[in-house]
Protein backbone atom coordinates (compact mmCIF):
# COMPACT_ATOMS: atom_id res chain seq x y z
CA UNK A 1 0.00 0.00 0.00
CA UNK A 2 1.20 3.46 -0.83
CA UNK A 3 2.16 5.78 1.98
CA UNK A 4 0.28 8.69 0.53
CA UNK A 5 -2.24 8.41 -2.25
CA UNK A 6 -3.82 11.39 -3.97
CA UNK A 7 -6.66 10.66 -6.36
CA UNK A 8 -8.28 13.16 -8.71
CA UNK A 9 -7.64 16.09 -6.42
CA UNK A 10 -9.29 19.40 -7.30
CA UNK A 11 -8.77 22.52 -5.24
CA UNK A 12 -10.70 25.66 -6.10
CA UNK A 13 -10.22 28.94 -4.29
CA UNK A 14 -13.47 30.85 -4.00
CA UNK A 15 -13.03 34.56 -4.45
CA UNK A 16 -15.68 37.26 -4.42
CA UNK A 17 -16.22 37.32 -8.14
CA UNK A 18 -14.31 34.40 -9.47
CA UNK A 19 -13.18 30.88 -8.80
CA UNK A 20 -9.57 29.91 -9.24
CA UNK A 21 -8.81 26.32 -10.08
CA UNK A 22 -5.45 26.06 -8.30
CA UNK A 23 -5.16 22.29 -8.54
CA UNK A 24 -7.03 20.31 -11.15
CA UNK A 25 -7.36 16.59 -11.40
CA UNK A 26 -4.06 15.60 -9.86
CA UNK A 27 -3.33 11.99 -8.97
CA UNK A 28 -0.10 10.97 -7.32
CA UNK A 29 1.18 8.40 -4.92
CA UNK A 30 4.20 8.11 -2.69
CA UNK A 31 5.60 4.72 -1.77
CA UNK A 32 7.45 4.31 1.47
CA UNK A 33 11.15 5.03 1.01
CA UNK A 34 10.63 6.64 -2.39
CA UNK A 35 10.71 10.40 -1.90
CA UNK A 36 8.70 12.45 -4.36
CA UNK A 37 9.61 15.89 -5.61
CA UNK A 38 7.06 18.28 -7.03
CA UNK A 39 8.57 20.82 -9.40
CA UNK A 40 6.80 23.87 -10.71
CA UNK A 41 7.01 27.61 -11.07
CA UNK A 42 5.21 30.08 -8.89
CA UNK A 43 1.47 29.75 -9.32
CA UNK A 44 1.66 26.15 -10.46
CA UNK A 45 -0.34 24.93 -7.48
CA UNK A 46 2.41 22.91 -5.84
CA UNK A 47 2.06 24.53 -2.43
CA UNK A 48 -1.73 24.36 -2.65
CA UNK A 49 -1.38 20.63 -3.16
CA UNK A 50 0.72 20.33 -0.02
CA UNK A 51 -1.72 22.41 1.97
CA UNK A 52 -4.55 20.20 0.77
CA UNK A 53 -2.71 17.13 2.04
CA UNK A 54 -2.22 18.83 5.40
CA UNK A 55 -5.81 20.12 5.33
CA UNK A 56 -4.59 23.60 6.04
CA UNK A 57 -6.30 25.46 3.21
CA UNK A 58 -8.30 28.58 4.09
CA UNK A 59 -11.92 27.99 5.04
CA UNK A 60 -14.32 28.06 2.12
CA UNK A 61 -11.88 26.51 -0.33
CA UNK A 62 -13.48 23.77 -2.37
CA UNK A 63 -11.53 20.53 -2.16
CA UNK A 64 -12.64 17.44 -4.08
CA UNK A 65 -11.03 14.09 -4.55
CA UNK A 66 -9.36 11.61 -2.26
CA UNK A 67 -6.21 11.83 -0.19
CA UNK A 68 -5.29 8.85 1.88
CA UNK A 69 -2.39 8.45 4.24
CA UNK A 70 -1.60 4.79 4.99
CA UNK A 71 -5.10 3.92 3.85
CA UNK A 72 -6.83 6.49 6.05
CA UNK A 73 -8.91 9.02 4.18
CA UNK A 74 -7.75 12.50 5.17
CA UNK A 75 -10.29 14.80 3.57
CA UNK A 76 -13.32 13.48 5.39
CA UNK A 77 -11.63 12.71 8.68
CA UNK A 78 -13.02 14.47 11.77
CA UNK A 79 -10.81 17.26 13.11
CA UNK A 80 -10.00 15.42 16.36
CA UNK A 81 -8.71 12.38 14.53
CA UNK A 82 -6.68 14.56 12.22
CA UNK A 83 -5.10 16.30 15.17
CA UNK A 84 -3.84 12.97 16.48
CA UNK A 85 -2.38 12.25 13.08
CA UNK A 86 -0.56 15.52 12.57
CA UNK A 87 3.11 15.52 13.50
CA UNK A 88 2.95 11.80 14.36
CA UNK A 89 2.10 10.52 10.92
CA UNK A 90 3.05 13.55 8.86
CA UNK A 91 4.77 16.86 9.48
CA UNK A 92 5.80 19.85 7.46
CA UNK A 93 8.69 22.30 7.07
CA UNK A 94 7.96 25.55 5.28
CA UNK A 95 10.30 27.96 3.54
CA UNK A 96 9.91 30.39 6.41
CA UNK A 97 9.50 27.84 9.16
CA UNK A 98 12.13 29.64 11.15
CA UNK A 99 9.83 32.65 11.45
CA UNK A 100 7.34 30.56 13.40
CA UNK A 101 9.73 30.37 16.34
CA UNK A 102 9.00 32.76 19.17
CA UNK A 103 11.69 35.42 19.52
CA UNK A 104 11.40 35.63 23.33
CA UNK A 105 11.73 31.97 24.29
CA UNK A 106 14.74 29.70 24.15
CA UNK A 107 14.75 26.96 21.54
CA UNK A 108 14.61 24.18 24.15
CA UNK A 109 11.44 25.52 25.75
CA UNK A 110 9.76 25.91 22.37
CA UNK A 111 10.68 22.45 21.16
CA UNK A 112 9.50 20.93 24.44
CA UNK A 113 6.18 22.69 24.10
CA UNK A 114 5.84 21.41 20.57
CA UNK A 115 6.64 17.90 21.75
CA UNK A 116 4.05 18.04 24.51
CA UNK A 117 1.23 19.18 22.24
CA UNK A 118 1.35 15.79 20.59
CA UNK A 119 2.50 13.71 23.53
CA UNK A 120 1.79 14.93 27.04
CA UNK A 121 2.94 11.81 28.90
CA UNK A 122 6.68 11.76 28.39
CA UNK A 123 8.76 13.07 31.33
CA UNK A 124 10.82 16.22 30.71
CA UNK A 125 14.11 14.38 31.05
CA UNK A 126 13.26 11.99 28.25
CA UNK A 127 12.12 14.82 25.99
CA UNK A 128 15.43 16.61 26.56
CA UNK A 129 17.34 13.50 25.60
CA UNK A 130 15.25 13.16 22.49
CA UNK A 131 15.84 16.81 21.54
CA UNK A 132 19.59 16.46 21.92
CA UNK A 133 19.43 13.40 19.70
CA UNK A 134 17.38 15.26 17.08
CA UNK A 135 19.77 18.19 16.96
CA UNK A 136 22.67 15.82 16.45
CA UNK A 137 20.82 14.38 13.45
CA UNK A 138 20.79 17.77 11.74
CA UNK A 139 24.38 18.61 12.78
CA UNK A 140 23.57 21.23 15.39
CA UNK A 141 25.53 21.55 18.64
CA UNK A 142 23.61 21.13 21.88
CA UNK A 143 24.12 24.73 22.89
CA UNK A 144 21.48 25.66 20.31
CA UNK A 145 18.91 24.48 22.84
CA UNK A 146 19.96 27.24 25.21
CA UNK A 147 19.89 29.95 22.54
CA UNK A 148 17.24 32.37 21.42
CA UNK A 149 16.28 32.37 17.73
CA UNK A 150 18.04 35.70 17.07
CA UNK A 151 21.34 34.15 18.11
CA UNK A 152 21.17 31.62 15.31
CA UNK A 153 21.64 31.98 11.56
CA UNK A 154 19.00 31.24 8.96
CA UNK A 155 20.51 27.87 8.17
CA UNK A 156 20.61 26.87 11.83
CA UNK A 157 16.99 27.93 12.36
CA UNK A 158 15.89 25.94 9.35
CA UNK A 159 17.73 22.94 10.80
CA UNK A 160 15.86 23.47 14.07
CA UNK A 161 12.59 23.40 12.09
CA UNK A 162 13.61 20.17 10.41
CA UNK A 163 14.52 18.65 13.77
CA UNK A 164 11.12 19.74 15.11
CA UNK A 165 9.32 18.09 12.23
CA UNK A 166 11.05 14.80 13.02
CA UNK A 167 10.41 14.68 16.76
CA UNK A 168 7.65 12.08 16.63
CA UNK A 169 9.17 9.96 13.90
CA UNK A 170 6.58 10.69 11.23
CA UNK A 171 6.82 8.44 8.18
CA UNK A 172 5.96 11.38 5.88
CA UNK A 173 7.52 14.85 5.97
CA UNK A 174 6.46 17.59 3.59
CA UNK A 175 9.25 20.02 2.73
CA UNK A 176 7.71 23.06 1.08
CA UNK A 177 10.62 25.06 -0.41
CA UNK A 178 12.44 24.25 2.82
CA UNK A 179 15.90 25.16 1.53
CA UNK A 180 15.01 27.88 -0.97
CA UNK A 181 15.96 30.95 1.03
CA UNK A 182 19.33 29.59 2.10
CA UNK A 183 22.81 30.10 0.75
CA UNK A 184 24.23 27.64 -1.75
CA UNK A 185 26.56 25.89 0.67
CA UNK A 186 24.04 25.74 3.52
CA UNK A 187 21.39 24.41 1.15
CA UNK A 188 23.75 21.72 -0.07
CA UNK A 189 24.63 20.70 3.47
CA UNK A 190 21.00 20.52 4.60
CA UNK A 191 20.06 18.45 1.55
CA UNK A 192 22.86 16.03 2.41
CA UNK A 193 21.53 15.77 5.96
CA UNK A 194 18.02 15.12 4.68
CA UNK A 195 19.34 12.33 2.48
CA UNK A 196 21.04 10.73 5.46
CA UNK A 197 17.82 10.92 7.48
CA UNK A 198 16.14 8.67 5.01
CA UNK A 199 18.25 5.73 6.11
CA UNK A 200 18.55 6.70 9.75
CA UNK A 201 14.90 7.43 10.47
CA UNK A 202 12.97 5.75 7.68
CA UNK A 203 11.30 8.97 6.70
CA UNK A 204 9.88 9.62 3.26
CA UNK A 205 9.43 13.15 2.04
CA UNK A 206 7.32 15.10 -0.31
CA UNK A 207 9.63 17.83 -1.50
CA UNK A 208 8.19 20.90 -3.14
CA UNK A 209 10.55 23.17 -5.00
CA UNK A 210 11.07 25.28 -8.10
CA UNK A 211 14.65 24.09 -8.37
CA UNK A 212 15.06 20.95 -10.46
CA UNK A 213 18.58 20.35 -9.21
CA UNK A 214 17.25 19.87 -5.67
CA UNK A 215 14.83 17.20 -6.85
CA UNK A 216 17.36 15.41 -8.99
CA UNK A 217 19.81 15.22 -6.11
CA UNK A 218 17.48 13.87 -3.43
CA UNK A 219 14.26 12.40 -4.81
CA UNK A 220 13.39 9.23 -6.63
CA UNK A 221 10.08 10.21 -8.12
CA UNK A 222 9.25 13.57 -9.64
CA UNK A 223 6.01 15.28 -10.63
CA UNK A 224 6.07 18.38 -12.83
CA UNK A 225 3.19 20.79 -12.36
CA UNK A 226 2.08 23.74 -14.42
CA UNK A 227 -0.93 25.99 -13.84
CA UNK A 228 -2.51 23.55 -11.40
CA UNK A 229 -2.19 20.51 -13.60
CA UNK A 230 0.15 17.61 -13.60
CA UNK A 231 2.29 17.65 -16.73
CA UNK A 232 4.62 14.74 -16.24
CA UNK A 233 5.25 12.14 -13.61
CA UNK A 234 7.79 9.39 -13.22
CA UNK A 235 11.16 8.50 -11.77
CA UNK A 236 13.84 11.18 -11.74
CA UNK A 237 15.76 9.27 -14.38
CA UNK A 238 12.73 9.02 -16.67
CA UNK A 239 11.51 12.59 -16.36
CA UNK A 240 14.76 14.51 -16.17
CA UNK A 241 16.90 12.44 -18.51
CA UNK A 242 14.15 11.61 -21.00
CA UNK A 243 11.45 14.28 -20.68
CA UNK A 244 8.34 13.62 -22.72
CA UNK A 245 6.41 16.83 -22.08
CA UNK A 246 7.35 20.09 -23.84
CA UNK A 247 6.99 22.00 -20.57
CA UNK A 248 9.49 19.76 -18.81
CA UNK A 249 11.82 20.15 -21.78
CA UNK A 250 11.47 23.92 -21.65
CA UNK A 251 12.08 23.99 -17.93
CA UNK A 252 15.20 21.86 -18.27
CA UNK A 253 16.39 23.99 -21.18
CA UNK A 254 16.17 27.19 -19.21
CA UNK A 255 18.22 25.83 -16.35
CA UNK A 256 21.75 27.28 -16.53
CA UNK A 257 24.54 24.74 -16.61
CA UNK A 258 27.86 25.08 -14.89
CA UNK A 259 29.81 23.07 -17.42
CA UNK A 260 29.62 22.37 -21.09
CA UNK A 261 28.97 24.63 -24.03
CA UNK A 262 27.93 28.16 -23.14
CA UNK A 263 25.04 28.78 -25.49
CA UNK A 264 22.31 31.33 -25.16
CA UNK A 265 19.85 30.46 -22.43
CA UNK A 266 16.43 29.53 -23.73
CA UNK A 267 13.42 30.53 -21.71
CA UNK A 268 9.80 29.63 -22.22
CA UNK A 269 8.11 32.57 -23.94
CA UNK A 270 4.78 33.84 -22.62
CA UNK A 271 3.14 33.91 -19.24
CA UNK A 272 1.15 31.64 -16.97
CA UNK A 273 -2.56 31.67 -17.93
CA UNK A 274 -5.28 33.21 -15.81
CA UNK A 275 -6.55 30.30 -13.73
CA UNK A 276 -9.98 31.82 -13.18
CA UNK A 277 -10.76 31.23 -16.85
CA UNK A 278 -11.04 27.60 -17.79
CA UNK A 279 -8.84 26.99 -20.80
CA UNK A 280 -10.04 24.69 -23.50
CA UNK A 281 -7.55 22.02 -24.30
CA UNK A 282 -4.05 21.80 -22.92
CA UNK A 283 -3.20 24.52 -20.44
CA UNK A 284 0.35 24.81 -21.76
CA UNK A 285 -0.66 25.06 -25.43
CA UNK A 286 -0.39 28.89 -25.71
CA UNK A 287 3.30 28.71 -24.76
CA UNK A 288 4.11 25.38 -26.35
CA UNK A 289 6.38 25.28 -29.41
CA UNK A 290 4.91 21.96 -30.56
CA UNK A 291 1.24 22.83 -30.06
CA UNK A 292 -1.10 21.62 -32.77
CA UNK A 293 -4.73 22.32 -33.50
CA UNK A 294 -5.83 19.30 -31.48
CA UNK A 295 -4.03 20.59 -28.38
CA UNK A 296 -6.19 23.68 -28.25
CA UNK A 297 -9.53 21.91 -28.15
CA UNK A 298 -9.65 18.57 -26.41
CA UNK A 299 -7.85 17.65 -23.22
CA UNK A 300 -6.34 14.26 -22.72
CA UNK A 301 -5.63 12.68 -19.38
CA UNK A 302 -2.31 11.34 -18.21
CA UNK A 303 -1.00 8.53 -20.38
CA UNK A 304 1.62 6.00 -19.52
CA UNK A 305 4.44 5.86 -22.05
CA UNK A 306 6.55 3.36 -20.17
CA UNK A 307 6.16 1.71 -16.79
CA UNK A 308 5.70 4.46 -14.24
CA UNK A 309 6.32 7.32 -16.67
CA UNK A 310 3.21 9.39 -17.31
CA UNK A 311 2.78 12.48 -19.45
CA UNK A 312 -0.16 14.74 -20.25
CA UNK A 313 1.07 15.56 -23.74
CA UNK A 314 0.08 13.43 -26.72
CA UNK A 315 2.41 15.33 -29.07
CA UNK A 316 5.63 15.15 -27.09
CA UNK A 317 4.98 11.48 -26.61
CA UNK A 318 5.52 10.71 -30.25
Amino acid at each position, binding site marked *: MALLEIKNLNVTYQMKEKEIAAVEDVSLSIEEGKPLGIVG*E*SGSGKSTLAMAVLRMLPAGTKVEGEISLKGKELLTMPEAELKALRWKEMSVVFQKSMNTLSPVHKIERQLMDMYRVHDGQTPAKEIKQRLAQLLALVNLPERVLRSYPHEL*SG*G*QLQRVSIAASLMHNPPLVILDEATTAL*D*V*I*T*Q*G*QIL*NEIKELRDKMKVTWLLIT*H*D*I*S*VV*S*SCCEQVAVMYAGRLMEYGT*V*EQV*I*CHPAHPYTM*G*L*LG*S*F*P*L*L*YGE*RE*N*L*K*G*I*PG*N*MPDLSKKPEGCVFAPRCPYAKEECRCGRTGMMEIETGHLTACPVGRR
Partner: protein
Amino acid sequence: MAYLEAEHLCKKYMVRGSNGKSFLQAVDDVNFSLEQGEILGVIGESGCGKSTLGRMLIGLEPITSGRVTYDGRKLEGLMKEDLRRFRGMAQMVFQNPFDTFPPKQTMQNILLRVMKIHHIGADKEERRQRCLRLLEEAGLKPAEDFLNRYPHELSGGQLQRLSIVRSMMLSPSFLVADEPVSMLDVSVRADIINMLMDIRKKKNTAMVFISHDLATTRYISDRIVVMYLGRIVESGGTDQVLHNPQHPYTKALLSYCGSVDPREKREQVEVPGEAFAGAGERSGCSFAPRCFMACGRCFREQPRMETVEEGHRAACHCMGGKSKTE
Protein backbone atom coordinates in the same frame (compact mmCIF):
# COMPACT_ATOMS: atom_id res chain seq x y z
CA MET B 1 42.66 53.38 -18.88
CA ALA B 2 39.64 51.41 -17.78
CA TYR B 3 36.21 53.02 -17.80
CA LEU B 4 35.33 52.28 -14.19
CA GLU B 5 37.90 51.76 -11.50
CA ALA B 6 37.47 50.85 -7.86
CA GLU B 7 40.54 51.22 -5.68
CA HIS B 8 40.86 50.04 -2.08
CA LEU B 9 37.14 50.37 -1.60
CA CYS B 10 36.04 49.95 2.03
CA LYS B 11 32.75 50.22 3.82
CA LYS B 12 32.40 50.13 7.60
CA TYR B 13 29.13 50.18 9.44
CA MET B 14 29.09 51.26 13.03
CA VAL B 15 27.48 48.74 15.35
CA ARG B 16 26.41 49.73 18.84
CA GLY B 17 26.59 46.74 21.13
CA SER B 18 26.55 46.11 24.85
CA ASN B 19 30.31 46.69 24.96
CA GLY B 20 30.38 50.03 23.19
CA LYS B 21 30.87 50.83 19.53
CA SER B 22 32.47 48.52 17.08
CA PHE B 23 32.69 48.38 13.31
CA LEU B 24 31.39 45.90 10.83
CA GLN B 25 33.58 45.74 7.78
CA ALA B 26 31.06 45.08 5.01
CA VAL B 27 33.43 45.75 2.13
CA ASP B 28 37.14 45.44 2.67
CA ASP B 29 39.81 46.67 0.26
CA VAL B 30 38.08 45.84 -3.00
CA ASN B 31 39.91 46.61 -6.24
CA PHE B 32 38.77 46.03 -9.78
CA SER B 33 38.37 47.76 -13.08
CA LEU B 34 35.81 47.55 -15.81
CA GLU B 35 36.11 48.38 -19.49
CA GLN B 36 33.33 49.89 -21.53
CA GLY B 37 30.90 47.17 -22.60
CA GLU B 38 32.30 44.63 -20.17
CA ILE B 39 30.15 42.60 -17.77
CA LEU B 40 31.61 41.71 -14.40
CA GLY B 41 29.91 39.05 -12.31
CA VAL B 42 30.12 39.49 -8.54
CA ILE B 43 29.47 36.25 -6.71
CA GLY B 44 29.04 35.59 -3.02
CA GLU B 45 26.68 34.38 -0.33
CA SER B 46 24.34 36.59 1.64
CA GLY B 47 26.20 39.01 3.86
CA CYS B 48 29.40 39.02 1.82
CA GLY B 49 29.00 42.67 0.89
CA LYS B 50 28.18 42.25 -2.79
CA SER B 51 25.09 44.45 -2.69
CA THR B 52 26.85 47.08 -0.60
CA LEU B 53 29.60 47.11 -3.18
CA GLY B 54 27.08 47.60 -5.99
CA ARG B 55 25.40 50.45 -4.18
CA MET B 56 28.70 52.15 -3.44
CA LEU B 57 29.66 52.08 -7.11
CA ILE B 58 26.74 54.28 -8.09
CA GLY B 59 26.77 56.46 -5.02
CA LEU B 60 23.74 55.05 -3.22
CA GLU B 61 25.91 54.19 -0.24
CA PRO B 62 28.63 56.54 1.04
CA ILE B 63 32.16 55.22 0.70
CA THR B 64 34.17 54.88 3.93
CA SER B 65 37.55 54.89 2.24
CA GLY B 66 39.04 54.22 -1.16
CA ARG B 67 37.78 55.62 -4.41
CA VAL B 68 35.67 54.96 -7.47
CA THR B 69 36.49 56.69 -10.73
CA TYR B 70 34.49 56.93 -13.93
CA ASP B 71 36.74 57.67 -16.89
CA GLY B 72 39.33 58.98 -14.49
CA ARG B 73 36.91 61.28 -12.67
CA LYS B 74 36.08 60.69 -9.05
CA LEU B 75 32.59 59.56 -8.11
CA GLU B 76 32.17 62.22 -5.41
CA GLY B 77 33.15 64.95 -7.82
CA LEU B 78 30.70 63.74 -10.46
CA MET B 79 27.87 63.57 -7.95
CA LYS B 80 28.56 66.98 -6.50
CA GLU B 81 28.91 68.66 -9.84
CA ASP B 82 25.67 67.44 -11.38
CA LEU B 83 23.83 64.62 -9.66
CA ARG B 84 21.19 64.44 -12.35
CA ARG B 85 23.74 63.96 -15.07
CA PHE B 86 25.51 61.34 -13.01
CA ARG B 87 22.25 59.42 -12.57
CA GLY B 88 21.94 59.45 -16.33
CA MET B 89 25.34 57.84 -16.49
CA ALA B 90 25.04 55.11 -13.87
CA GLN B 91 21.86 53.19 -13.11
CA MET B 92 20.74 50.18 -11.12
CA VAL B 93 18.30 47.29 -11.50
CA PHE B 94 17.08 45.93 -8.18
CA GLN B 95 16.44 42.41 -7.02
CA ASN B 96 12.75 42.52 -6.25
CA PRO B 97 10.69 43.72 -9.22
CA PHE B 98 7.53 43.65 -7.11
CA ASP B 99 8.59 46.56 -4.96
CA THR B 100 10.62 48.53 -7.46
CA PHE B 101 7.57 50.50 -8.60
CA PRO B 102 5.11 52.66 -6.67
CA PRO B 103 1.93 50.56 -6.45
CA LYS B 104 -0.57 53.34 -7.04
CA GLN B 105 0.87 54.68 -10.29
CA THR B 106 0.26 53.41 -13.78
CA MET B 107 3.29 52.30 -15.74
CA GLN B 108 2.82 55.33 -17.98
CA ASN B 109 3.19 57.74 -15.08
CA ILE B 110 6.16 55.86 -13.73
CA LEU B 111 8.03 55.73 -17.02
CA LEU B 112 7.21 59.22 -18.32
CA ARG B 113 8.26 60.77 -15.05
CA VAL B 114 11.83 59.63 -15.59
CA MET B 115 11.96 61.38 -18.95
CA LYS B 116 10.34 64.50 -17.60
CA ILE B 117 12.86 64.82 -14.79
CA HIS B 118 15.70 64.40 -17.22
CA HIS B 119 14.22 66.72 -19.85
CA ILE B 120 13.90 64.11 -22.54
CA GLY B 121 11.31 64.90 -25.18
CA ALA B 122 9.54 68.23 -25.67
CA ASP B 123 6.05 67.33 -24.54
CA LYS B 124 4.04 64.49 -23.09
CA GLU B 125 3.06 63.06 -26.46
CA GLU B 126 6.64 62.85 -27.65
CA ARG B 127 7.68 61.17 -24.41
CA ARG B 128 4.82 58.72 -24.75
CA GLN B 129 5.82 57.78 -28.28
CA ARG B 130 9.40 57.33 -27.19
CA CYS B 131 8.27 55.16 -24.32
CA LEU B 132 6.15 52.98 -26.60
CA ARG B 133 9.12 52.42 -28.85
CA LEU B 134 11.32 51.40 -25.94
CA LEU B 135 8.74 48.94 -24.67
CA GLU B 136 8.35 47.36 -28.10
CA GLU B 137 12.09 47.03 -28.37
CA ALA B 138 12.12 45.26 -25.01
CA GLY B 139 9.62 42.72 -26.27
CA LEU B 140 6.69 44.08 -24.29
CA LYS B 141 4.01 43.93 -26.93
CA PRO B 142 1.51 45.45 -27.41
CA ALA B 143 3.17 48.38 -25.69
CA GLU B 144 -0.06 50.42 -25.40
CA ASP B 145 -1.41 47.70 -23.19
CA PHE B 146 1.35 47.97 -20.65
CA LEU B 147 1.24 51.73 -20.22
CA ASN B 148 -2.22 51.77 -18.68
CA ARG B 149 -1.59 49.01 -16.24
CA TYR B 150 -0.65 49.10 -12.58
CA PRO B 151 2.36 47.17 -11.26
CA HIS B 152 0.21 44.56 -9.50
CA GLU B 153 -1.37 43.59 -12.79
CA LEU B 154 1.93 42.44 -14.23
CA SER B 155 3.98 39.32 -13.69
CA GLY B 156 7.44 39.29 -12.12
CA GLY B 157 9.17 38.79 -15.45
CA GLN B 158 7.29 41.66 -17.06
CA LEU B 159 8.00 43.94 -14.12
CA GLN B 160 11.70 43.14 -14.23
CA ARG B 161 11.74 43.94 -17.95
CA LEU B 162 10.05 47.25 -17.24
CA SER B 163 12.55 47.91 -14.49
CA ILE B 164 15.37 47.39 -16.97
CA VAL B 165 13.62 49.57 -19.55
CA ARG B 166 13.34 52.33 -16.98
CA SER B 167 16.99 52.03 -16.01
CA MET B 168 18.05 52.13 -19.65
CA MET B 169 15.88 55.11 -20.57
CA LEU B 170 18.70 57.54 -19.99
CA SER B 171 21.17 55.36 -21.90
CA PRO B 172 23.54 54.99 -18.97
CA SER B 173 27.05 53.82 -19.70
CA PHE B 174 27.17 51.79 -16.50
CA LEU B 175 24.53 49.53 -14.97
CA VAL B 176 24.51 47.64 -11.68
CA ALA B 177 22.16 44.64 -11.75
CA ASP B 178 21.69 43.41 -8.20
CA GLU B 179 20.37 39.85 -8.34
CA PRO B 180 17.98 40.76 -11.16
CA VAL B 181 16.76 37.20 -11.71
CA SER B 182 16.79 35.58 -8.30
CA MET B 183 13.13 36.44 -7.60
CA LEU B 184 11.97 35.16 -10.97
CA ASP B 185 10.90 31.78 -12.23
CA VAL B 186 13.46 29.73 -14.09
CA SER B 187 11.58 29.89 -17.37
CA VAL B 188 11.68 33.71 -17.50
CA ARG B 189 15.19 34.13 -16.13
CA ALA B 190 16.68 33.40 -19.52
CA ASP B 191 14.69 36.27 -21.06
CA ILE B 192 16.06 38.79 -18.60
CA ILE B 193 19.62 37.54 -19.01
CA ASN B 194 19.29 37.71 -22.79
CA MET B 195 17.79 41.19 -22.55
CA LEU B 196 20.78 42.43 -20.56
CA MET B 197 23.20 40.86 -23.04
CA ASP B 198 21.30 42.51 -25.86
CA ILE B 199 21.64 45.91 -24.21
CA ARG B 200 25.34 45.40 -23.82
CA LYS B 201 25.66 44.51 -27.47
CA LYS B 202 23.63 47.47 -28.71
CA LYS B 203 24.71 50.21 -26.32
CA ASN B 204 28.08 48.97 -25.12
CA THR B 205 26.99 49.40 -21.51
CA ALA B 206 29.38 48.26 -18.81
CA MET B 207 27.65 46.16 -16.15
CA VAL B 208 28.20 44.73 -12.73
CA PHE B 209 26.00 41.63 -12.38
CA ILE B 210 25.57 40.67 -8.74
CA SER B 211 24.43 37.13 -8.02
CA HIS B 212 24.73 34.18 -5.71
CA ASP B 213 24.21 31.75 -8.55
CA LEU B 214 27.38 30.68 -10.31
CA ALA B 215 25.65 28.94 -13.18
CA THR B 216 23.53 31.95 -14.16
CA THR B 217 26.46 34.33 -13.85
CA ARG B 218 28.46 32.16 -16.18
CA TYR B 219 26.09 32.91 -19.04
CA ILE B 220 26.34 36.68 -18.82
CA SER B 221 29.70 37.76 -17.46
CA ASP B 222 33.06 38.18 -19.12
CA ARG B 223 34.88 38.22 -15.84
CA ILE B 224 33.97 37.07 -12.33
CA VAL B 225 34.99 38.15 -8.86
CA VAL B 226 34.17 35.95 -5.88
CA MET B 227 33.62 37.70 -2.57
CA TYR B 228 33.74 36.31 0.94
CA LEU B 229 33.03 38.48 3.98
CA GLY B 230 33.75 41.74 2.23
CA ARG B 231 36.92 40.74 0.42
CA ILE B 232 37.55 39.56 -3.08
CA VAL B 233 39.04 36.09 -2.78
CA GLU B 234 39.33 35.26 -6.45
CA SER B 235 39.00 37.10 -9.74
CA GLY B 236 39.51 36.24 -13.36
CA GLY B 237 37.88 35.37 -16.65
CA THR B 238 34.60 33.49 -16.27
CA ASP B 239 35.97 30.19 -17.53
CA GLN B 240 39.24 30.61 -15.65
CA VAL B 241 37.43 30.98 -12.34
CA LEU B 242 34.75 28.36 -12.91
CA HIS B 243 36.84 25.70 -14.59
CA ASN B 244 40.09 26.20 -12.76
CA PRO B 245 39.14 27.54 -9.34
CA GLN B 246 42.09 28.31 -7.09
CA HIS B 247 40.60 29.55 -3.86
CA PRO B 248 39.12 26.86 -1.58
CA TYR B 249 35.97 28.97 -1.15
CA THR B 250 35.36 29.09 -4.89
CA LYS B 251 35.93 25.33 -5.00
CA ALA B 252 33.38 24.85 -2.23
CA LEU B 253 30.80 27.05 -3.94
CA LEU B 254 31.21 25.16 -7.18
CA SER B 255 30.93 21.80 -5.49
CA TYR B 256 27.55 22.73 -3.99
CA CYS B 257 26.19 24.23 -7.18
CA GLY B 258 23.16 22.12 -8.12
CA SER B 259 23.04 20.07 -11.27
CA VAL B 260 19.89 18.93 -13.03
CA ASP B 261 21.40 15.69 -14.14
CA PRO B 262 20.80 13.02 -11.49
CA ARG B 263 23.61 10.91 -12.93
CA GLU B 264 26.21 13.60 -12.40
CA LYS B 265 28.05 13.06 -9.14
CA ARG B 266 30.18 15.89 -7.83
CA GLU B 267 32.61 15.58 -5.02
CA GLN B 268 31.62 18.03 -2.33
CA VAL B 269 34.13 20.13 -0.48
CA GLU B 270 33.63 20.05 3.24
CA VAL B 271 32.89 23.54 4.65
CA PRO B 272 32.01 23.35 8.33
CA GLY B 273 30.29 26.18 10.17
CA GLU B 274 28.92 29.38 8.76
CA ALA B 275 30.31 32.69 7.66
CA PHE B 276 31.04 34.90 10.63
CA ALA B 277 29.85 38.33 9.60
CA GLY B 278 30.02 39.96 13.01
CA ALA B 279 31.68 43.21 13.95
CA GLY B 280 35.20 43.54 15.27
CA GLU B 281 38.76 43.12 14.09
CA ARG B 282 39.82 40.08 12.18
CA SER B 283 43.25 38.75 11.66
CA GLY B 284 44.33 36.35 9.02
CA CYS B 285 42.23 34.94 6.20
CA SER B 286 38.52 35.28 6.96
CA PHE B 287 37.80 31.92 5.35
CA ALA B 288 40.41 30.08 7.43
CA PRO B 289 38.01 28.82 10.18
CA ARG B 290 35.98 26.95 7.55
CA CYS B 291 38.75 26.04 5.17
CA PHE B 292 39.79 22.44 4.61
CA MET B 293 43.37 23.38 3.80
CA ALA B 294 44.00 26.15 6.33
CA CYS B 295 47.40 26.22 8.01
CA GLY B 296 48.80 28.25 10.90
CA ARG B 297 49.80 31.08 8.63
CA CYS B 298 46.23 31.48 7.40
CA PHE B 299 45.08 32.43 10.88
CA ARG B 300 47.87 34.96 11.44
CA GLU B 301 48.37 36.69 8.15
CA GLN B 302 45.91 37.96 5.61
CA PRO B 303 46.68 36.52 2.18
CA ARG B 304 47.17 38.95 -0.70
CA MET B 305 45.87 38.60 -4.21
CA GLU B 306 48.43 36.70 -6.25
CA THR B 307 48.47 36.06 -9.94
CA VAL B 308 47.77 32.47 -10.95
CA GLU B 309 47.88 33.03 -14.67
CA GLU B 310 47.30 35.97 -16.98
CA GLY B 311 44.21 37.79 -15.64
CA HIS B 312 43.42 35.19 -12.98
CA ARG B 313 44.16 36.11 -9.37
CA ALA B 314 43.33 34.60 -6.00
CA ALA B 315 44.07 35.33 -2.35
CA CYS B 316 45.16 32.17 -0.60
CA HIS B 317 48.37 31.13 1.16
CA CYS B 318 47.94 27.48 0.26
CA MET B 319 47.35 27.80 -3.46
CA GLY B 320 49.07 25.53 -5.89
CA GLY B 321 49.55 22.73 -3.40
CA LYS B 322 51.83 24.55 -1.00
CA SER B 323 52.07 22.36 2.05
CA LYS B 324 49.80 22.54 5.05
CA THR B 325 52.61 22.73 7.55
CA GLU B 326 54.22 25.83 6.13
